[in-house]
């Protein structure tokens, strides 16, 4: 069912570009043969993908850890929250990509910059979702916990943390989208990065190989979609299954 529109669109695209109705539009067959060439004959596609996934993983894991840490502190304390929230919303107004020049200057032109961009991309979304999650935990549950004599730590572990998953898990999904986009953008701009799907598009710009650009775009789109579906799957297996939120 999901495939159907692609079966319709691809032949139309093929015809349009074979008849050259749109200039510089490579036909899908050419993009596909480019894919075969890069993936199997030259074998560089795997290297591009591995480079990207490696940076995404490190940056994203850092973003999740620090995001949960900061989010918990801010979520639990009203005064800290009132102080930090304006700062956070000021910082969140800066597009992740705008940090890239600063990162290039301070961290250099290589992997560190890209990883830092991935981190910044995901960090704010996760922090926000944890703050929101902790704040929206049902007050009756907290009071019930207190009445049965739960200490501060026990209360956090058994009530606040599970309660905030409602918001954290969708936040993880939102964040991986931001991180993925930041990754691609930063890879394009960081000069010393050799491998990565963003780099693949950017280097083909220099040589004007437009079918490689399209292939790169498709890979980025499909990989982004797969990451999103993976997190959606986790969402459905956890908070949706436990009945904390309805399926969206």
């Amino acid at each position, binding site marked *: *069912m999901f495939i159907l529109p692609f079966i319709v669109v691809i032949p139309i695209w093929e015809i349009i570009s074979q008849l050259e109705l749109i200039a510089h539009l490579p036909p899908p067959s050419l993009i596909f043969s480019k894919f075969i060439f890069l993936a199997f004959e030259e074998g560089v596609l795997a290297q591009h993908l591995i480079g990207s996934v490696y940076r995404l993983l490190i940056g994203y894991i850092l973003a999740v850890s620090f995001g949960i840490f900061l989010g918990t502190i801010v979520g639990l304390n009203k005064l800290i929250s009132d102080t930090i929230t*304006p700062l956070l919303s000021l910082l969140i107004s800066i597009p992740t990509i705008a940090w890239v*020049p600063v990162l290039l200057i301070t961290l250099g032109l290589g992997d560190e910059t890209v990883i830092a961009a991935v981190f910044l991309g995901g960090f704010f979304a996760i922090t926000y979702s944890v703050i929101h999650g902790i704040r929206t935990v049902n007050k009756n549950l907290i009071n019930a916990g207190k009445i049965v004599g739960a200490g501060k730590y026990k209360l956090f572990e058994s009530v606040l943390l599970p309660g905030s998953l409602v918001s954290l898990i969708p936040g993880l999904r939102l964040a991986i989208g931001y991180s993925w986009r930041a990754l691609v953008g930063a890879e394009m701009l960081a000069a010393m990065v050799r491998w990565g799907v963003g780099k693949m598009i950017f280097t083909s710009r220099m040589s004007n190989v437009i079918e490689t650009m399209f292939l790169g775009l498709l890979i980025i789109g499909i990989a982004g*979609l797969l990451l*999103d579906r993976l997190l959606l799957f986790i969402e459905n297996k956890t908070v949706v299954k436990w009945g904390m939120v309805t399926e969206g």
Partner: protein
Amino acid sequence: MEFKIKLGNILAIIIIFIFFLFWEIFANYEIIQIALFSKPSLIFLKIYDNGFEIIGHLLTTLYRLVLSFFIAMIIGIFFGMLMGYDQHIYRFFNPLITTLMAIPGIAMAPIFIIWLGFGDPTIITIGIIVAFFPIVYNAAIGVRSIDKNHVNAAKIMGAKKKHLFLKIYLPHSFTYIIIGVKLGLARCWRTIIAVEFIAATGYGLGYMIWDAYEYLNVTIVYTGILILAIVFFTIEKTIIREVEKKTIDKWGVLHEQVS
């Protein structure tokens, strides 16, 4: 309540002030390198000296933002509601939209530069594309989430298509449309800055930052980032908040949307 919020805000302002103060002091005592981190006094001096030029960059970016956002909004809401209304159209386009939505705008830039050249056409086109997807997606979900009983009730009482649209479909999907529009605006803003990095000629905040970076003029880079933060923060807290107050809050559906 009101007082508490103000106390927090005052603390926030104090913290920002202290942050700038330490930045300045550290830079003056060379604990951090001015060549890498600049310093606040240089940034404010830059804003003071080159105010008109910076406003020129800002207005160019805002022009691109407003133009592409409004085009995307009109097409997106129309097409999204159509998709929500008709099951077949939804089934056909939804996979295409979810796939294309995952592509960041900056990755499209090299291709559009080949098609449309450097400058406004490329930047505005990509702006329209990235803002379009969240709007169309949410508008479609909004219409699909309408209780069919409402529609049928209206039909039984003899509502015409025009009335169905104006009295049922539009108001009931409005919450979703606003969420989509908000996400679309934020994506449009981020993408336009990003595309300006590689596709702009001469003007735009993104161009200003990237051009300064290439000449390692860090003060202008930080100035640009500060302006980006202030501008979008202001848009978010004034225009968007106001629209939400007038619509979503008023109709009793409160959304603390994370974006």
